[in-house]
């Protein structure tokens, strides 16, 4: 089954939150998910240690540059979705993980700084597509967005869309429940209510569904 790589060389873009939301929502919808923590800060591992892992999720910690390709190969089998959470730096680990992706998601806050640095991941994907002679599907998701879209957000989204970048809709909004995942562990369905819980669950589920549609669509090609 597909490998989804969450990549951006920008720290604090929301990679680990995106990975946890995607993994837990896909598992909640019935998929078996393997989550790989390739971030030296071990955000996914911290999340996993906070509470019982949701059903159908397993986690692999401390996957490094030298073993990323073979670790993905070992788990990239029919029957489970692999989600790779990467470190927020430009490293060889990132480029190797991207080479193994069926879909690369670049989380990006709707700021000029995030967009400028995040675009480097898109450039890398393009270079790897050429080097490996293989299409690497990729998409951008805006993270920590507000209910009212800023001019900056609209401008960046418009610019990316003009360049043909696939933007995942809905973006992941700034939600107390999303950040609380790293306090309580588990998923949105089991944690104590945080803010507008129903809105958070709906946002995460719609995001996961949008990713699933891309994976299913690509697989059907």
């Amino acid at each position, binding site marked *: *089954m597909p490998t989804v790589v969450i990549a951006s060389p920008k720290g604090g873009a929301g990679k680990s939150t995106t990975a946890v939301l995607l993994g837990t929502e896909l598992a909640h919808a019935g998929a078996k998910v393997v989550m790989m923590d390739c971030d030296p800060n071990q955000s996914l591992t911290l999340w996993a240690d906070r509470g019982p892992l949701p059903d159908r999720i397993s986690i692999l910690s401390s996957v490094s540059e030298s073993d990323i390709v073979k670790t993905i190969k070992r788990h990239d089998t029919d029957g489970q979705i692999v989600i790779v959470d990467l470190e927020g730096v430009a490293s*060889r680990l990132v480029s190797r993980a991207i080479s193994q992706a069926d879909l690369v998601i670049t989380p990006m806050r709707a700021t000029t700084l995030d967009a400028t640095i995040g675009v480097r991941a898109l450039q*890398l994907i393009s270079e790897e597509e050429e080097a490996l002679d*293989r299409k690497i599907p990729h998409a951008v998701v805006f993270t920590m967005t507000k209910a009212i879209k800023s001019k900056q957000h609209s401008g960046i989204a418009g610019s990316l869309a003009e360049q043909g970048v696939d933007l995942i809709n809905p973006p992941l909004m700034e939600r107390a429940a999303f950040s609380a995942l790293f306090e309580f562990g588990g998923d949105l*369905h089991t944690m104590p209510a945080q803010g507008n819980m129903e809105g958070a669950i709906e946002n995460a589920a*719609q995001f996961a569904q949008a990713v699933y549609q891309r994976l299913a669509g690509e*697989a*059907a090609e």
Partner: protein
Amino acid sequence: MTDKPFNIDLSRLKTREKDRSAQAVEKTDRAGEELGFVAREPQKKRGRKPSPRTGQVHAKVMPGISEEIANEARRRGVQQGVIIEEAWKLYKNKSGI
């Protein structure tokens, strides 16, 4: 809102064939390096590991003996200290030390 807002059809999710050869990894590394995606993990120390033999004996022996010890060590591909250690072991066994 239902508890399970969408269903996953697992049969629609298939893995794609990816090139995992050493050549493909090399091409990936090269493509990344051009954009500043370089190796950032600490590299392993190069070269020979330090010997655990840190003790030292200060022995003068007859010229022929030193040559024989050196030749035997070279023949076996070990340090001269290994020969001395073995000799000491034999001496201890013989002497009951």
